C-alpha cells in the first residue's frame, strides 16, 4: 500500500510540474516574448526508465493482466453451438455481458444469432412462437433478477402451452465479485426460484464442465414431451474468468423418444371406440408435428368419427392445427349428436366432458402427457377429470399403436356400418360450413369492419400462398377457422397457453422468423390490447427483416373485460352503462399505423371502410412478399 501511495504522489508531482510549465507558456504575452531573451523553460522531461523504476517499482507488463483471451463464455458458446440453437432472443444486461460478447465475436453471431428485443417478456414470447413452428427451442438470455422478472409471465405462458424454450439467466453468485450498487440488485442466492413453479427443470452450474452437462440435459428435458421451458443460471464470473485447459467435454445430445401408451390401455381404448355408435375425438395440443395431423386423419377415417372443431363442454380444442378444417369429419357431429365415447387427445381440461358423459352413461378416454409434468402451486391442471380410460402418454406417439389396434379390431361388417355414419357426418359438416358462410354475410358492409369480412378479405389474397396463421382465434370469433382451408400443420399454432396478454405480437414475430427460411407467408391478426403491452417488438421485426403481415383487430379496448364488467354490473342491478370505464382504449384512439411507422415498418390505417380493406391488405402483402414486415390497422367490430 505504501508503495502504491508513493507512486501516486510522484505522478501527481510530475503532472503538477508539467502543468505549471504549460501554464507559463500560455500566459506569457507574445510581445514580451519577442523582446525579452527567453528565460530557462521549466522542464517536463520524460523520466528515464531508471527514474521510473525507482519511482513506481517494476514496470507493468506490456500486456494488461485484465485481458482474458479465453473466457469461460467462449466455451459456453461452444456448448450452445453443439445444440444448434439458431437464435438467442435477448435484451442486453451487464450480468451476461461476457456471454453476449462471446456470441458476437467468438461465435461470429451465428448459432446462435442474437435477436435484439426491447423487453424480456417479448424475448421469451418470441422463443415461444418460434418453437411452435420450428419444432425445437430458441435460446432466450435474460439479465439477472430484473430481466427474469420481466420475462416471467412469458415463461409461464410457454409452460402452460407445453412449449420448449432454453432460457439462460445470468447471476453473480460471488458477493466479492459484484460491483457496488446496482450489481447487487441483479444477483440472487437462488435465481431460478422465482420461476421454478413453471419451468420443467433448472440448474445453476458451478463450473464450465457442469455448464456443458446441464445445457445438454436442459435441452433434452425441454424437448421430451410434455415439453416445457428450462432455465440455466450462468454465473458472471464463470462467463468472464479464463477457462482452464483443456476444455471440458461436451456431452452428446440424444433426444428421448416420447412416452407412448401402454399396450393394454391402448387395446381397451380401441375396443370402446370401435364399438361406439356416436364417438367423438377432441384434440387440443395433439399434433406436435405434421405427422400428428396425418395420424389423426387416419384414425378418424378408420373410425368414421368426428373431430371436434369448436370448444365443447369447457374443453379447448385446436390449440394446434390438428385436423383439416375441410375434412368431412371435421366437426362435432350432426345436430343433437351426443357422444357415447369421447377420446381426448392432449386436452387440458377433460372434467366437463367426463362429467357430462357420466351423466349419460357414456365413456371418456384421455391420452395426454399432462400428468407427467404437473406441479402444485400454479393451478393449470384444471379440475379432476374422472375419465374411464387414462393414458399418461404423448398422444401423437400413441396414435400409431391406437390406429393399429383399431384396424385389428374392425371387422368388415363394422366398416360397412361406419360408412353410413360418415355420410351423415359429412352432410352435417357441409351444412355447418354453409351456416358459417351465411353468418359471415351479416354486417358485411358495416363500419367498424366485421371480423368475418376481415378474415374473408385476407383469405382471398393468401389462399394460393404457403401461409401460416400465427395468432390465436379466440378473440376473433374463430373466423379464419370457419372460412379458411386449414390442412397443414404449420398453418395454426394456437394461443398464449396461460392467457397472459402481451404474447400475440412477439410470438408471431418468433414464429414468422421460423417460417422465413421456408418462404412461408406469415399472418398475424393482432388484438389491439395485446399489442400495447410491448410494441417495441415491431422494431425487432423490422431490424431483423422478418416478413410478417399484421392486421390489427382494433376494437378499441380489452373487449373481453368490457363484457365481464358489464355482466357483473347487470347481475348487481346497477351501472350497466359504465362497463367502458377502465376497459376501453379510446379518448384518444391509438394510431397503430403511426406507431408501426415510427419503428420503421410499412403500415396503413386506420381502415374503417370495408371497401378500403382489400386494397390495403394487397399493398401490405406486397411488402411482406418482398421480405419485410407490414401492418394494417383495421377498425373492427368487437368479435
Amino acid at each position, binding site marked *: 500500500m505504501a508503495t502504491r501511495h508513493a507512486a501516486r504522489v510522484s505522478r501527481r508531482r510530475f503532472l503538477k510540474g508539467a502543468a505549471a510549465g504549460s501554464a507559463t507558456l500560455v500566459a506569457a504575452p507574445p510581445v514580451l516574448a519577442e523582446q525579452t531573451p527567453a528565460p530557462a523553460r521549466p522542464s517536463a522531461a520524460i523520466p528515464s526508465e531508471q527514474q521510473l523504476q525507482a519511482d513506481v517499482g517494476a514496470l507493468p507488463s506490456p500486456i494488461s493482466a485484465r485481458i482474458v483471451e479465453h473466457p469461460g463464455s467462449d466455451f459456453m458458446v461452444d456448448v450452445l453451438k453443439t445444440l444448434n440453437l439458431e437464435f438467442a432472443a435477448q435484451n442486453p444486461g451487464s450480468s451476461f455481458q461476457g456471454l453476449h460478447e462471446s456470441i458476437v465475436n467468438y461465435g461470429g453471431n451465428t448459432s446462435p444469432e442474437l435477436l435484439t428485443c426491447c423487453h424480456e417478456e417479448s424475448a421469451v414470447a418470441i422463443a415461444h412462437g418460434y418453437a411452435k413452428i420450428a419444432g425445437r427451442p430458441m435460446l432466450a438470455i435474460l439479465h439477472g433478477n430484473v430481466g427474469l422478472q420481466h420475462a416471467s409471465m412469458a415463461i409461464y405462458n410457454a409452460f402452460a402451452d407445453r412449449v420448449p424454450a432454453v432460457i439462460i439467466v445470468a447471476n453473480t453468485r460471488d458477493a466479492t465479485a459484484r460491483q457496488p450498487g446496482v450489481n447487487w440488485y441483479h444477483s440472487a442466492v437462488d435465481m431460478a426460484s422465482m420461476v421454478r413453479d413453471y419451468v420443467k427443470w433448472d440448474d445453476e452450474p458451478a463450473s464450465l464442465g457442469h455448464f456443458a452437462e446441464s445445457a445438454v440435459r436442459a435441452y433434452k428435458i425441454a424437448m421430451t414431451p410434455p415439453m416445457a421451458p428450462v432455465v440455466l443460471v450462468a454465473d458472471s464470473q464463470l462467463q468472464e474468468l479464463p477457462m482452464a485447459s483443456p476444455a471440458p467435454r461436451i456431452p452428446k445430445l440424444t433426444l428421448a423418444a416420447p412416452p407412448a401408451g401402454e399396450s393394454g390401455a391402448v387395446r381397451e381404448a380401441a375396443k370402446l371406440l370401435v364399438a361406439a355408435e356416436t364417438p367423438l375425438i377432441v384434440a387440443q395440443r395433439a399434433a406436435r408435428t405434421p405427422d400428428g395431423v396425418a395420424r389423426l386423419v387416419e384414425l378418424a377415417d378408420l373410425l368414421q368419427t368426428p373431430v371436434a372443431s369448436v370448444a365443447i363442454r369447457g374443453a379447448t380444442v385446436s390449440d394446434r392445427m390438428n385436423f383439416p378444417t375441410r375434412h368431412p369429419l371435421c366437426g362435432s357431429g350432426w345436430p343433437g349428436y351426443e357422444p357415447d365415447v369421447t377420446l381426448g387427445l392432449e386436452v387440458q381440461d377433460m372434467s366437463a366432458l367426463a362429467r357430462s358423459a357420466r351423466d349419460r352413461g357414456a365413456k371418456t378416454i384421455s391420452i395426454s402427457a399432462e400428468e407427467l409434468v404437473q406441479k402444485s402451486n400454479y393451478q393449470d391442471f384444471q379440475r379432476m377429470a374422472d375419465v374411464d380410460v387414462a393414458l399418461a402418454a404423448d398422444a401423437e406417439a400413441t396414435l400409431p399403436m391406437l390406429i393399429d389396434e383399431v384396424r385389428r379390431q374392425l371387422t368388415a361388417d363394422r366398416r360397412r356400418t361406419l360408412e353410413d355414419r360418415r355420410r351423415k357426418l359429412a352432410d352435417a359438416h357441409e351444412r355447418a360450413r*354453409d351456416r358459417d*358462410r*351465411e*353468418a*359471415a*354475410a*351479416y*354486417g*358485411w*358492409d*358495416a363500419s*367498424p369492419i*366485421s*371480423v368475418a*369480412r376481415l378474415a*374473408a*378479405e385476407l*383469405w*382471398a389474397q393468401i389462399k394460393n400462398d404457403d401461409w401460416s396463421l400465427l395468432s390465436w382465434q379466440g378473440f376473433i*370469433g374463430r373466423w379464419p377457422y370457419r*372460412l379458411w382451408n386449414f390442412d397443414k400443420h404449420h398453418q395454426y399454432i394456437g394461443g398464449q397457453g396461460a392467457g397472459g396478454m402481451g404474447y400475440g405480437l412477439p410470438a408471431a414475430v418468433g414464429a414468422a422468423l421460423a417460417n422465413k427460411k421456408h418462404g412461408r407467408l406469415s399472418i398475424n391478426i393482432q388484438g389491439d390490447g395485446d399489442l400495447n403491452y410491448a410494441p417495441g417488438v415491431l422494431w425487432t421485426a423490422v431490424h431483423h427483416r422478418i416478413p410478417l403481415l399484421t392486421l390489427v383487430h382494433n376494437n378499441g379496448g380489452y*373487449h373481453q373485460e*368490457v*363484457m365481464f364488467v*358489464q*355482466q357483473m*354490473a*347487470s*347481475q348487481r*342491478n*346497477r351501472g*350497466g*352503462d359504465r*362497463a*367502458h370505464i377502465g376497459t376501453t382504449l379510446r379518448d384518444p384512439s391509438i394510431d397503430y399505423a403511426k406507431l408501426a411507422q415510427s419503428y420503421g415498418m410499412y403500415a396503413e390505417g386506420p381502415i374503417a371502410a370495408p371497401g378500403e380493406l382489400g386494397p390495403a391488405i394487397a399493398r401490405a402483402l406486397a411488402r411482406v412478399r418482398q421480405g419485410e414486415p407490414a401492418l394494417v390497422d383495421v377498425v373492427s*367490430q*368487437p*368479435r
Partner: protein
Amino acid sequence: MLALPLIVSTLFSLVAAQSASGTGDAARGKDIYLRYSCYACHGYAGHGGAGPRLVPMRLSLPAFASVVRNPPTMPPYSAKLLSDAQLSDVWRYIRALPEWPPASRIPLLAK
C-alpha cells in the same frame, strides 16, 4: 310460492312497456345500445359476436322485453337499469338495422 308474483310482475311490466312507449325511438335506442354495451356481444350492426345475432329482429316487443329482463344466458337488465320505454327504443333501433344480402351474393363468400 315466489314464482307467481314474479310472473304477474313481469307480465305487468311487459304490458306497460308496450303501452307506455308506443313504437319506440330508434335514435334514442341507438344511444342506449352503445352506452349499455349491447354492441359488445351483439356487434355494432347487430350481426352477432360473442352473443347471438339480433338481425333481422323477429321478436315482438313483449318477447324481446321478456328475454332482456330474464335472459337464459346474457346479463339480465331489470327495469331499474333499463326502463320499459328504453327497451322499446332499443327494440326499435334493432328493427331498423339493415338486413344483409345472402352469402351467395357476396363473391368472397361464394362456394
